[in-house]
């Protein structure tokens, strides 16, 4: 039994403590916005916040986050109106969209660490996350747009 906070609500899951947080979030708790892309800390599709810091949820065992506060894309805003989500829609960033939950969660962590990042700082920070559709330049623009609002 592991207890933690998910998107502001306490949850308790009865899963093996070594099961990946990613799978617990998706399959036990039913939040599918967090994606599996590689399971190897290489793509960032699984990015969530653990106690405010960006983490690859494919690299954490659920037992390791006992008591922690986990935020997923579903918890970033109540209604999809976080400044980053609005900027993502304004800039029409997603193509296939599969990487984008992870991109947005990573970008949100960037803006909380560095509210006015330069283009280079954005590119470096976002390099943890792959986008095979090639939307990187739009991601940069959307992060810059959101930074003006945050």
């Amino acid at each position: 039994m592991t207890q933690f906070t998910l998107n502001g609500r306490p949850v308790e899951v009865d899963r093996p403590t070594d099961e990946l947080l990613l799978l617990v979030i998706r399959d036990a708790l039913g939040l599918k916005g967090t994606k599996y892309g590689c399971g190897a800390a290489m793509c960032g599709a699984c990015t969530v916040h653990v106690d405010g810091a960006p983490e690859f949820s494919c690299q954490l065992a659920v037992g390791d986050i006992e008591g922690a506060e986990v935020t997923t894309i579903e918890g970033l805003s109540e209604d999809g109106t976080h400044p980053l989500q609005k900027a993502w829609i304004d800039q029409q960033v997603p193509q296939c969209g599969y990487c984008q939950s992870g991109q947005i969660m990573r970008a949100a962590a960037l803006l909380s660490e560095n509210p006015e990042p330069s283009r280079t700082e954005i590119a470096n920070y976002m390099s943890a996350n792959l986008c095979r559709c090639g939307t990187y330049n739009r991601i940069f623009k959307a992060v810059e747009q959101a930074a003006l609002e945050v």
Partner: protein
Amino acid sequence: MTAQILRPNLSRRTLLKGGAGLVFVLGVGGLSAVEVNAQDATLDVNQWLTISPNGAITIVFPSTEMGQSSYSTLPQMLAEELDADWNDVVIAQLNEDDRAFGNPIFGGVLYTAGSTAVQGYYDPMRRAGAQVRDVLLQIAAQQLGVAKDSLRTETSTVIAEDGTRLSYGALAATGLDGVQIPDAEAVTLKDPQSFRIIGQDIPRRDVPAKSTGKAEYAIDVELDNMAHAVVLRTPVEGETPTAVDDAEARTVEGVIDIVTLPDGVSVVAETLWAALGARDLLQVEWSTTSPARNFNSETTLASYAEAVRDPEADVAVWAEKGDATSAIKNADSTVSHLYLSDYAYHAQIEPMAAVASVDPDGLGVEVWAGTQTQSWTTHTIMETLGTTQDRIRLHMMTMGGSFGRRTAFVQDYVRDAVLSSRAVGRPVKVTWTREDDVKNGTFRPAAAQQLEAGLTTDGQLTGWHHKVATPTVIGFFNPGRWEIVKPNDVISMRGAESKFYDIADFRADHIITERQARLAPYRGIGAAYTSFAAEAFMDELAEAAGRDPLEFRLDLVRDNQRGQYLLEKVADMSGWQDRGDRALGLSFAGYSSSMAAGVAEIEVDDSSGEILVTHIWAAVDAGRIVSPDNAHNQIEGGIVFGLSSALSERIDIEKGEVVQSNFYDYEIVRADRVPPIDIHIASVDAPPTGVGEVGTPMVSSAIANAFYAARGQRLRHMPFTRDRVRSVLQS
């Protein structure tokens, strides 16, 4: 024309659930309308669109969505001619192999590939919209007692001369008495000048869900009582499991069953985590007789290089004009070079996944999958269960990228989900790990290409011969199709026709080599490597002729004014004429009838061998652009894809096994290596020709040519990995 086309057998389509109104049916006999009332609310018909009394206009989306935005773009084309209010439009995914909706470019097969969706549906979907608009005008004319010609339409409304406005919803509810349905070919289409939807930046329908984590992909499907499966697949193509020791695997808590498949072993468990753990404990012996065990990518490429230089090799002529051989023989000088390219992997971020729920009788099934083809997915399921099409309930899910990956005639991940579900009598989701996806990848083929051309003493091109040694891709991923089209393989050869240039004596040959890997179409298909070779060679020719690469190319596009415009435009955008010390490389290629001129600017780190691309400019002509902002996004994505495959993407095969496993040894480009990309899209009055792949083919040659500008050395083997660049610099 018949008044009604009913397809009572297709009883599962319930687009009309709960609504009454007019249903417009485009079937084999053309368009017809069917009146529906509340009692008939679940009438099953085969329709392009329905208009409900409440004003909702439901338009069928006949392709599948993998990021290219056809989901929004195709219905827009119909809505334009219908003069619909885009906000009234509801989009309905076509979830079956109903050839009445097929893409004319593929002979009616439901197949989303080759940047053809807008091109193929541009005419039929606009005509369907125009027909329905005409019918609505007739109904309004009757109601108002005025001439049809006196009426006009705008945003889902018919407007009379006296200002009376009738909504499409209200008209649809009133019936069809006395209405004549016009012939599809005879309806008048709009003058593009009056387009309100086509050519506008209308936001994509799927972007909000894709910005909030709500978009549902096959890998996300969750059903009651669903089990999870992972498959231990044969490490080498063509082998089968000969002995399975699953005793230990079965002890893992949550394991439901272990199912032997033709080429793998499926571990079915209550959770994905349990299935993965149990799979690690399987002991499987595989047969060892497959000829694929001899596949080694290094020797494969060497043998292709040998074949391409062998004057006796059998060739299939891909394109020919004039007499290239004589022109080259009579030239004042000749230039010839060999170009190589390795296997490449699609690397779509969503790995393969499918969910199947087989009926108790083992013949019916409901399937959720993301694929590029309703037709071949249906085919796969029918073959797997030995069943008929009417027993299949399909859900075509939006895909987390594809780029050609999900096009095969036989889709093994779908098959595995169906077989696993049948075995355990429960719904089963099959998920491939990234490692499964790489190891069982289907690749862009390796290729060796020899180019030879003649030059006159005054620096003119005379005679061009392009030989491509690579296997047939179609022969592997769709053998039945190959029987029809052979020896012409557009997937293997596209681009080698160099059709945007006017070269009087021209020849491109396909040397069809032995297949030594699993193959598939790949973004840009043949042009991803043929245009690399052709456009890198073009620069070498310009150099040998002592001419500027731009001037040399402009000579060859005198009959292609749209191409000439692109070359001049990209030169202008990039400051080509005053480039000074900047290392710029030019290329001019494209995809099908869409053209792209590109310039790459690079820097080279000599010690690491890394090429840093610092800027890319592109000028693109893809005919009329239906969705400009999305076109820009697609072209940019295509360029990034080209950049990535040029610099680092490479699959190796040893003893029949794929060497790479994941994104740590198959590198795709990351944010910090993506340069600013400036794109100009030409505005032309011509039919649309597709934007999904046009950006890709020119990139690798632009980079190779920029490398020559930077270091005076040629890169003739793609990808230009750091070690290859270092060894070129040291040579």
